[in-house]
């Protein structure tokens, strides 16, 4: 295999790289990591990590003197830290700490702890970097400690004080938030937490102090294993106890809908019927709120991605996933008017959300109670939103609330003197623009509402 198939995100660790061959994800291991890989395999530690759900399982495909190739279990959709809700972010951080403690207890250690090494799979976080393990040498400090703080503790603590937006910091700081910046940003009272004082303030101070002196690179530092375990335990307790109190639009959204329970149920049944009609196995629900509609489909499909702009709705959705042990629902925070872009080296190290959705070949996209927000809040013309949806999936279930719908009326009124510029917003224009890109398969007015549901097929 040549390196031409190398995945664009995989270049940082010289131990190996991810490669795509005929659509199958493989991990190529370089000779530099052979002895470690063999130790991890023969000691049975990899197996333990698979059995405990800490690491994505893999099987060995081939081995020769120049490379070993393994095939990890396929993760069809890869989410990034800046798309996670608060609980998801917390869970990912806790997963990393669990893994490091487990490693230490078995004579290993994590050599890096970036948040990009975690993704959500089958309803839980999983560590994906099979080559991140090293033998633990008694007394050595955790070299990925600072990375953990910059990738996990920093965004979570900032979110505790300043709200959900802070969880998107890794989109800007792909290598984690500088601790000196975090120390400056946190309120004075944060110093009184022994966990924050040592892990943020002191670490920031020591980091600055030692980074200026080149002679320190060879400095030997020892810390007993018991000490490192204490750090992990205290970080775990602290992060697990973190809460975020920020009110958003989403709160009892469905209790204040402008239509009755019968119409709500009618809509649910229709969505179920149509997804079955096109034999959908993979569905993406855009603007899916807390997953209420996606859950109706869950028993019949294999994969559901539910995105929403409201982080509290997504957080509630994730808690439902955990409570009900739902393995086929992935909630994600995303603003359709500003989805996660491609970032990192060459803008391809972390792919845009729209591209990842398109690549995962969902059968159907749902856009319920969404178009009026895109069109009236975002001012996006019908022709442009139609093209956007058509790029994502072959089928689209879309709900159109007409001008008489109370939400639409409210949005139009808020335009004040520019209301006249939105006269185009009506059913006829919607159909006209959307049917240039899609064919109509089904159309159904929802009784006792001003809303119409469509099943469209991409031309």
């Amino acid at each position, binding site marked *: 295999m040549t390196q031409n198939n190398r995945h664009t995100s995989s270049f940082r660790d010289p131990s190996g790289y991810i490669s795509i061959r005929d659509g199958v994800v493989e991990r190529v291991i370089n000779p530099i990591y052979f002895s470690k890989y063999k130790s991890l395999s023969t000691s049975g530690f990899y197996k333990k990590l698979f059995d405990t759900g800490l690491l994505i399982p893999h099987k060995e495909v081939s081995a020769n003197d120049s490379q070993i190739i393994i095939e990890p279990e396929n993760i069809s959709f890869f989410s990034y830290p800046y798309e996670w809700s608060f609980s998801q972010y917390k869970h990912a951080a806790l997963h990393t700490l669990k893994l490091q403690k487990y490693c230490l207890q078995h004579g290993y250690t994590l050599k890096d702890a970036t948040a990009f090494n975690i993704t959500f799979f089958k309803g839980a976080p999983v560590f994906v970097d099979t080559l991140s393990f090293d033998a633990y040498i008694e007394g050595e400090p955790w070299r990925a400690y600072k990375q953990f703080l910059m990738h996990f503790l920093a965004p979570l603590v900032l979110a505790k004080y300043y709200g959900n937006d802070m969880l998107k910091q890794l989109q800007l700081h792909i290598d984690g938030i500088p601790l000196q910046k975090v120390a400056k940003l946190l309120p004075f009272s944060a110093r009184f937490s022994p966990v924050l004082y040592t892990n943020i303030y002191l670490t920031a101070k020591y980091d600055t102090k030692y980074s200026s002196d080149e002679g320190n690179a060879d400095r030997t*530092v020892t810390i007993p294993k018991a*000490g*490192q375990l204490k750090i992990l335990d*205290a970080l*775990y307790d602290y992060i697990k106890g973190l809460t975020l109190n920020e009110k958003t639009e989403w709160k009892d959204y469905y209790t204040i809908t402008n239509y009755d329970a019968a119409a709500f149920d009618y809509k649910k049944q229709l969505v179920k019927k149509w997804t079955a009609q096109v034999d959908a196995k993979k569905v993406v629900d855009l603007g899916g709120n807390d997953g209420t509609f996606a859950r109706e489909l869950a028993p019949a499909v294999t994969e559901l991605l539910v995105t929403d702009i409201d982080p509290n709705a997504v957080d509630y959705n994730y808690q439902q996933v955990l409570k009900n042990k739902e393995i086929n629902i992935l909630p994600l925070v995303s603003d359709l008017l500003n989805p996660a872009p491609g970032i990192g080296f060459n803008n391809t190290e972390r792919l845009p959300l729209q591209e990842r959705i398109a690549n995962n070949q969902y059968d159907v996209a749902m856009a319920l109670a969404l178009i009026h927000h895109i069109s009236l809040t975002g001012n996006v013309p019908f022709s442009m939103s139609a093209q956007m949806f058509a790029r994502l999936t072959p089928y689209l279930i879309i709900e159109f609330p007409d001008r008489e719908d109370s939400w639409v009326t409210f949005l139009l009124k808020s335009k004040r003197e520019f209301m006249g510029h939105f006269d185009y917003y009506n059913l006829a224009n919607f159909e006209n623009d959307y049917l240039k890109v899609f064919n109509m398969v089904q159309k159904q007015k929802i009784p006792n509402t001003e809303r119409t549901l469509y099943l469209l097929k991409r031309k």
Partner: protein
Amino acid sequence: MKFPFLYFDPGTGALVVQVLAAAGAGIALFYKKIANGFKSVFGKKEEQDLMGDINVDDKADDSKQ
């Protein structure tokens, strides 16, 4: 300390500070223990634990040995 496979800078300061962080962690864990004692005395109800504790159950593995 030499790290032969190092591909990012762990920061010497961040290694040195771990000794202090361990001491801070000791204090935090000590207070938590006391707080938990109070909670159990006054019977404060815990919310459903969705994320578990840090210790990973190795039983599945032990049973095979």
